[in-house]
């Protein structure tokens, strides 16, 4: 190797080392941001009523274009009648109406599924589960306010 070749190899190696060193020492440019904005203390508007929350007077069943997704009971039907809805329905016919549409009102084993069962999501979000959501969970609040989560 003559002197010129040696200088080429040497300067090349030095430049590569320096470049590698500089890039290795370069400060990362990816930053993490974690702002926090709390929920309002005033509750939003209650859109859908269901068994855990209690029936909202004046709301008619969701399947008939209303906002009530309460599990049908004799008392509920009386409330519907008092509000002028479903006058020609009795409890078995109303339950049959739900069954005809494949809507699940309660699970055989009696457990709460929080609308995560095979029939889920909740009826108001396009599913066919109308089991009352579990109190204190996010789904409970989403069903009440009609906010559909996007993940």
């Amino acid at each position, binding site marked *: 190797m003559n002197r010129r070749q040696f200088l080429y190899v040497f300067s090349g190696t030095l430049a590569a080392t320096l470049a590698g060193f500089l890039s290795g020492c370069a*400060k*990362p*440019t*990816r*930053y*993490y*941001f*974690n*702002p*926090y*904005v*709390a*929920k*309002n*203390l*005033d*509750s*939003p508007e*209650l859109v859908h009523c269901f068994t*855990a*929350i*209690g029936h909202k007077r004046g709301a008619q069943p969701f399947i008939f274009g209303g906002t009530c997704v309460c599990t049908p009971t004799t008392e509920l039907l009386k409330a519907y009648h008092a509000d002028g809805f479903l006058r020609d329905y009795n409890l078995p016919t109303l339950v049959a109406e739900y069954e005809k549409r494949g809507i699940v009102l309660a*699970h055989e*084993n*009696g*457990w*709460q*599924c*929080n609308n*995560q*069962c095979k029939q889920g999501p909740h009826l108001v979000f396009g599913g066919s589960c109308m089991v009352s*959501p*579990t*109190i*204190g*969970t*996010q*789904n*409970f*609040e*989403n069903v*009440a*306010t009609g*906010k*559909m*989560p*996007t*993940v």
Partner: protein
Amino acid sequence: MKCMRMMVLAFCLLVLLVNGAFANFVHKNVPNDSNAIAFDQRLLLRQAHGEYIWPDAIYSQQQINAQKSNTVRDAWIAHNLSFTLKAFPREDNNFVLPLLNRGLLNYSTGNYDQAYRYLVNAQQCMDDLKQKSMTIAGERAKIFKGEHYERAMANFYLGLMLYDRGDYENARAMFSRTLECDRETVPDQERLDKLAKKYARKTKEGGEEEFFTIYQALGNDNRLAYYMLARTYMKLDQHRDVEISLNHADDWQDVPTFIKEESCGVFVNMANSFDPRPPPDNPYATKERLNKDNLVILIQMGFAPAKSAAGWEGQKDFLAPRDYPERKAVVYIDGKRLGEAYPIFNLMHQATPTVRTLKDTAQTGKAAGKFLVGVFASAFSSDLARLVQDKWSVAADTRRWGSLPNEFQLISARVEPGLHTLTVLFYDQNGNPLPHYEQTHYFIPTKEDEETFLVLRSLRDKCNTVRDFYGSKITSYNPKKNEIVFNAADLAGIQIGQNLDIITFDLDDEKLNQQFMQEGCVMPGSTKITFLQKKFDKIYKKSTVTRVGVANIIKLTKSKAVCKLVEGNMDLKKNYFITNYTLPRNIIKDENNYDTLQKGI
């Protein structure tokens, strides 16, 4: 003069109105992809993907394969298994762990149907499993069946679900079973005698009798199970049993120091800080409160203690607390203070009295055996010695039910029937507020003659109406060409033609801004952000993220992205970031309800 007063009054009213309007403005627009709307779904997605739940760190298969020490390798594998949601076949030694983790995840998201199936399956396996107690290999080769406190917790959660469902007879059985599991803390007579003698030697005043009393109390101090048992007996109208259970709901016994040292090793001081002595009287554990209160809230906090391998072959395991900031919870109903939650249960306290039994002696024997065989093998061939070293693991079993909480705090009250907004504010051990842990739940129903029973879990950002996100620092800006350059590797999934938000980040203090520029960055390849989250909890409390413009990607390589500024202006002197997270609003200012609630509204 009167006119002047009126004007001042009108001005004050106007200021108050404007303040009120501004305070409410930020909270109301909650995007559907925020944690405050999509929290359950995000958790369930982890289960669908067979990922992990609430770990501190997860070790990749590459990291595990590259690890030369089989002690560390085994510890990492056990750590991953402790948080796994991936289902295993019955033949797998670890098949109970995902059942437990999935059970707890489904419980947290309100799917009691699935949670019950998973937990009952796990509980039966843990209770019924019989296996040989000795093996020359590491303890991890055995089927995982949990420690006594983990078995107790599986029974306890089953009890909670049955109680919630109104199946009080079965709930009673589960809570009683929880207490039975807790009594397994008490070792056999021979071991107990040895410990008593040790105790008598260490404490000059206390004798062996005192030690027996202490251990009987330690095996009977699951105050939460007693409290729930009392509530269940109340439902069953067994009032004498209610009183007996309530008497125990206040019992607390300090664990003798030498037992703590045996269980926790070098982590003993940390263990003390995560297992503080609770206030002497539980204000909620009285018959009157059980009768009267129609709202009962259990708040789960923190994470179950970890197990750390120790000893020259990693043959011993020590209990090591997992760090979590929230220690105190104050509950508000419709903005009014309901009270401070009472720390009724601590898993660290339940786990510490676990007596080092025959298993530990056997583990030490195995480690010594391995050493001797290694020495013997090295006399013949170094390869044989290496084979013994690499392939024979005598590492302690550090698998655990990782998703369990460490604490349960309790609050109950009589609340007016109707729908309420429930807010829980969390504080650290020095009483500093933790805004990221704040929880607000709407439409909590309470009834006149029926109790509402809530079990909440404190998790970071659970009710945050904005997401956390990554941004890349803009490395150069050419005002003539209107071009921006940033490191393309910083933002995942970006494409040519995509619009990205340009933001500024301000902490309301120049020094803090500079500190953020130095320390807020994420090291390449690092996925652990807990360190940075702690900084947001402690230092970066008053941040403002402002969208200043929009840029469109025109050139993209693996390392570099060039964008055209299509909206907004940039100042060459300022620091800007670019992000692929679409900000829900132009200005995101840190807002919490601590000031409003603490002052009282």
